């Protein structure tokens, strides 16, 4: 008897609590592609979520689901979040693009924010960061620092975001080191530490002494450290724990200001669908501290480039740049458009000099 009573009281209390929540709290959901402890991509998105909580305190309630596969499963998770009363849902991987659009159609009153995609709707905003700006700086350092003239690049999926990064890094490495060669390995995963480590080891065995990665875990840096005399960069997060080892700098994604602003917009009823694509200038892309392994003059050049990109005086894709097949992409002095044929948003080609094909 006592036990049932206890249960009943608990149920009533819980019921009251949930209705109370439903009344005055803005509910924000996050869908993650990896675990929050990946030390990279998802870790930074989760930092953004925590920043939203810190900013609004009791006025907001955030939930997240991690390790959500890109595909039908994602749709299920988003639907569940929407049914549970989420007001705003951030879907944080490129592969969630179509699921987000599908679910958004079913829940016109819920606001969606999709990261790194290009499909917008009345209740779907898209946002991304200009990671390629950071890649330009990486490429510069890589080109200056490689002794074997072989740079290894671990790609995840052949999507515009990743291809932009490869092109940007290559252009700037080539600029300072005409002999540089890129070896590219596609891992076809965002997160699989063992596979990422294998890919890094293979690249190192084939002569690479700089490893650039576009996957989410710190495993490639661990492999670089084990090999010795190989440098790498933090990806998505600072990965500072490798700063006394192979990590010489990093690209840091800072989503917190955007997440706070968008949550605020929902609270104020001012949210509207838009497309945001910010870079170093707006603070969405950060460059992690460049360590002493990098010679002082290279560091100074890298910082100068960062400043020029930030104030808009330099665009990482400035002509003349040819496509891989030798045709002209950008004429002398021309800079790449965001949205147009051959624009950055849908980039699906390598620039001249890169060897290998992009998987279809």
């Amino acid at each position, binding site marked *: 008897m006592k036990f049932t009573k206890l249960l009943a009281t608990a149920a009533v209390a819980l019921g009251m609590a949930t209705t109370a929540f439903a009344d005055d709290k803005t509910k924000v959901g996050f869908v993650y592609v990896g*675990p*929050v402890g990946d*030390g990279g991509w998802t870790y930074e998105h989760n930092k953004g979520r925590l920043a939203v909580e810190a900013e609004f305190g009791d006025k907001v309630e955030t939930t997240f689901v991690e390790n959500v596969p890109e595909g039908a499963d994602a749709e299920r998770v988003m639907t569940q979040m929407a049914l549970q009363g989420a007001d705003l849902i951030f879907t944080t991987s490129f592969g969630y693009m179509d699921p987000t659009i599908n679910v958004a159609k079913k829940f016109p009153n819920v606001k969606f924010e999709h990261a790194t995609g290009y499909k917008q709707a009345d209740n779907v905003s898209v946002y991304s960061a200009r990671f390629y700006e950071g890649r330009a700086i990486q490429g510069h350092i890589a080109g200056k620092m490689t002794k074997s003239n072989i740079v290894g690049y671990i790609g995840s999926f052949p999507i515009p975001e990743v291809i932009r990064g490869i092109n940007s890094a290559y252009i700037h490495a080539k600029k300072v080191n005409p002999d540089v060669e890129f070896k590219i*390995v596609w891992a076809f995963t965002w997160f699989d530490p063992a596979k990422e480590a*294998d890919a890094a080891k293979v690249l190192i*065995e084939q002569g690479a002494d700089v490893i650039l990665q576009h996957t989410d875990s710190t495993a490639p840096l661990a492999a670089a450290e084990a090999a010795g005399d190989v440098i790498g960069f933090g990806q998505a997060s600072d990965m500072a*724990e490798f700063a006394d080892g192979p990590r010489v700098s990093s690209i840091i994604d800072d989503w917190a200001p955007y997440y706070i602003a968008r949550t605020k917009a929902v609270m104020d009823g001012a949210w509207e669908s838009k497309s945001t694509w910010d870079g170093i200038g707006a603070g969405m892309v950060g460059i992690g501290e460049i360590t002493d392994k990098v010679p002082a003059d290279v560091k100074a050049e890298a910082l100068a480039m960062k400043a020029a990109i930030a104030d808009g005086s330099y665009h990482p894709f400035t002509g003349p740049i040819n496509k891989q097949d030798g045709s002209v992409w950008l004429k002398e002095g021309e800079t790449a458009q965001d949205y147009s044929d051959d624009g950055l948003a849908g980039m699906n080609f390598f620039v001249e000099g890169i060897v290998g094909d992009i998987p279809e």
Partner: protein
Amino acid sequence: MDLSAINPALLLASLLVAATPILIAGIGELVVERAGVLNLGVEGMMITGAICGFMATIITGSPALGFLFAALGGAALSLLFALLTQVALANQVASGLALTLFGLGLSALLGQGYVGLKPPSTPKLDIPLLSDIPFFGTVLFNHDIIVYLGIALVAAVWAVLKFTRVGLVLRAVGENHDAAHALGYKVVRIRVLAIMFGGACAGLGGAYISLIRVPQWTEGMTAGAGWIALALVVFASWKPWRVLLGAWLFGGITVLQLNLQAAGVSIPVEILSMSPYIITIVVLVIMSADKSRAPASLGRIFHASS
């Protein structure tokens, strides 16, 4: 294309490393299934072993103790499965899946303070003269002890199953638990021991990833290796040497395809990426065209009264 960039000795050596986690986890699961129990929790036990081994190595500074604790951790988790399926007679498929989910969650919780730490490196077994032999030295005699342990385990499991009384009893329990029970064998006890052996092996396999192959702790870092091990057992028709072959094929082609990609071979990357799965399955399926079949009592619940 520049195939000369690929060093065959290094390739074969990394084959052994890439194969070891699924090999050890697979051979453990083989014993479990030969005893008539289907434990789908390999992934959960591997990741638990990965974090237990990692924590023990960080705390004690000794990789050997790390591997010991990894085996203990995996075995302890498998005991939960044994309790559910052998004592409470719960459904094995559901319990195994639950074990995987539980293991992933538990390891994430345990590992919170261990992200970004670096374990002391496990020494390689440098056998003085042998490891200096060109080519063969690099391929065969320049590994950590766990690589050899994995191969030894396969040999031991094969010998025990084929030649010893213990192996015979284990197989009898797996083929027909009622008959084994009628003969006076303790079906439940034998199965619990087999499950714990499987758990210990899975734990070792997981720790190999977190201590040697990657070496670091990241949540969810086994990323499906447990499922590969599980599939390997089935496609290997529950035969130890075929598990070894399957693991080497899978590990070898995984490393080979990355090498081919890096060397710029003009084979579409999609085909290279799926090749480890396809080739391993095809080879093992062709081999299982002989009269191999699953242990007859696999997955069935045993109770002395029935």
